[in-house]
C-alpha cells in the first residue's frame, strides 16, 4: 500500500511538473517571475524528494510493508460508503442520501442494535435540516430531480 501511495504522488508530481514546463513560462516578457516560476521549482522538488524517499525506503526494506494489512478492510468500507454518499447526495439530495448513508454505515458497523440504528437514522437528517436549513440558513444539496 505504501508503494502504491508513493507511486501515486510521484505520478501526479510528474504530470504537474510536465504541465508547469509545457504550459507555463518561467519569466514574463518583462523579465519578471512568470506563472511557471513557482510550479516548475515545486514540481521538480517534489519529484526529487519522492524519488529520494522511495530509494531510502528500498534501502531500509520498508517499502513493501503493510501490503497485506487486513486492518484496511473497515476503513475501506467506510471510505466506499462515504464516496457513495457523495454521489447519492449529488443525484438524490440530502433527504434521501443522509438516511441511506447513516443506515448503511450503522447496519455494517453497529450490527444487531436495530432500535439505536433506526433512531439515529431518522434523527440525524431532521437535526441537519433544522441546523443547516433553518438555524444557519445554509444551502443544502437537493439533488438533480427535486
Amino acid at each position, binding site marked *: 500500500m505504501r508503494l502504491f501511495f508513493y507511486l501515486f504522488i510521484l505520478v501526479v508530481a510528474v504530470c504537474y511538473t510536465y504541465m508547469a514546463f509545457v504550459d507555463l513560462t518561467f519569466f514574463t516578457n518583462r523579465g519578471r517571475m512568470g*506563472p511557471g516560476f513557482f510550479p516548475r521549482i515545486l514540481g521538480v522538488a517534489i519529484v526529487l*524528494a519522492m524519488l529520494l524517499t522511495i530509494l531510502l525506503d528500498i534501502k531500509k526494506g520498508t517499502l513493501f510493508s503493510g501490503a497485506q494489512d487486513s*486492518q484496511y478492510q473497515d*476503513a475501506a468500507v467506510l471510505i466506499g460508503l462515504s464516496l457513495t454518499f*457523495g454521489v447519492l447526495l449529488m443525484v438524490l439530495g440530502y433527504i434521501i442520501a443522509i438516511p441511506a448513508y447513516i443506515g448503511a454505515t*450503522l447496519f455494517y458497523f*453497529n450490527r444487531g442494535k436495530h432500535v439505536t440504528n433506526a433512531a439515529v437514522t431518522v434523527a440525524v437528517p431532521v437535526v441537519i435540516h433544522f441546523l443547516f436549513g433553518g438555524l444557519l440558513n445554509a*444551502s443544502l444539496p437537493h439533488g438533480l430531480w427535486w
Partner: protein
Amino acid sequence: MEIFDNLLMGLSIAITPMNLLYLLLGAAIGMMIGAIPGFGPSAGIAILLPVTFSMDPISAVMMLAAIYYGAMYGGTITAILLNTPGDSTTVASTFDGFPLAKQGRAGPALVMQACASFTGGTIGVILITLLAPMFAMVTRSFGPPEFFLLCLLGILTLVALMSGNWILGLVSALIGFALGTVGVDLETGHQRFTFGSSELIGGIHFIPVAIGLFGIGELFHAFYSGAHKSGTGGIVQYQNEERFWPTRKDFRESKFTMPRNAILGFCIGLIPGAGATIASLMAYSLEKSLSNTPKKFGQGEMRGLTAPESANNAASSGAMVPLLTLGIPGSASTAVLLAAFIMWGLRPGPLLMAENPEFAWGLISSMYLGNMALLVISIFAIPLFVYIIKAPYRILAPLVLVVCVMGTFSVNASVIEVFIMLGAGVIGFLMKRFGFSPAAVVLALVLGPMAEESLRQTLIISRGSFDIFFLRSSSLYIMVFFVAVILSGILLNAYRKKANIQGAPL
C-alpha cells in the same frame, strides 16, 4: 497603561450577549471535541468553520478560538478516566492522571486538571497581552522580503521539528504549496492547472482541504486503527468515590507547579511547530526533576498531572502570538484559525493590532473570559462529557462525516468541493498512515500564495536581485532567527529521542 486601555476596549467588544453565547458554545464544543479520542482542536475548528459563516467575524473568531483552547481542557478527561489521551497534547497527563483515578481519586484529579488548565491558559493570555503589542511594534517595519522569509520560516520550522521522517514532511509542504498554485495567476492572468474548470479558476479552497485532511482523514484512520471496535468498559466510575473535591494538600503541593510550568509552556508555544505536546512532556520532566520524591511520579502524583496540564494550555496561548503578530501559524490548529481570519478579510500580521484593534483586543479579552468559562464548565459538566466519551465511535463517525459534508457544501453550494473534501480525507488518511504531515499541507496551502505574492513584490523592488534579503537588517534578523529555530528543532528532536517519546502528529 495603553495595554490596559486596549484590554478594556477589547472587553467592551467581547462582552455582548451574543458574543458571550458563542464563546460559551465554542468552549463547550471544544471540550466535547477534545474529549473524543483522536479528534484534536484542528479537526474541530476545521469541521465547524463553515457553521460560523453566518456570524459576525468577531463572534465567529471568538467561538473558533474557544474551540481551540477548549479542546485542550477536554482532552484530559479521557486521559484520566480512560487512560486514553484525547489528543497528543494530553499524553503526559495519562502518566499520573490514570493512576490517580485508579486510586479512587478521579474526582480530585479532574478538578485539579481544570484548575491547572485555567492557570496555564490565564497566564498564557496575560503573557499574550504583554508581549503581542511589543512583537507587533517590532514587526511593523517588515516589507515583502520579510513576509516571504516568514512564510518560509513557518513551513520549514514545522518540517524541521517533525518527529518522524523530515523528507516526508518536506514533500507534504511542497504538495501544499503546489495546491496553492492552482487557479489564475494574479500578475499575468494565466490559468494554472484548472483543466478548463470554472470552479478551479479561483484556486483550491482551503476549507474542503482542511476538513478533509483533518476531520475525515482522522475518521478513516480511527477505523483503520480499530477505534470503532473498542468499547469504554475500562472507564473509571468516579461517581462512586467518597470525595470529589481536592484536598488543601493537593492545592498546596501544586501552588508553584502550575505557574512555573505555564511560563515554560508559553515559551515553548512561541516556537512555531514545537507546540503543546512538547511543552507538556518537558513540563512533566521538569517537575519530576525538581521534586524531592521523583519516584512518586507515574504512580498517582498530583504534580505529575498539573504540570503538563498547565504547560499545554499555556503553549496553546503562546502559539497565538506568532499568529496574531506575524501572521505565521505555528501549528495545524492555528493554520485553520489563520484561514478563518483571512476568510473574513482579516490578515493577521504586524499591522493587525494597529489596523484592527477591536478585533485583536476583542479576541485576546475573550480568551480571559473563555478560560473562566472553561474552568466552570470543566468542573460542573464532567458527567456530560463522560456521557459523550461513552458514545461508541462507530455511531459518532457517520454523524461527524455528515456534518463535514453538509458544512463543506454550505460554503459555496458546490458538490465539487464535497468531492475535494472526501478526496482530501482519503489522502489525509494515507498521509497519516505513512508518516506524511497533513498539517504541513494545510500550512503550505495557506502560506504558499502569500509567499509567491511576497517574492514577486520583493523581486520587483530589487529589480530581480536576491541580494535584497541580505541587505535589509530585518531580513537578516529573520534568517538568524530561522537558524536558531532549526537548531532548537534539532535539540528538541534529540530530547524526544532521549526520552523515547512520540512527537506531535504535525
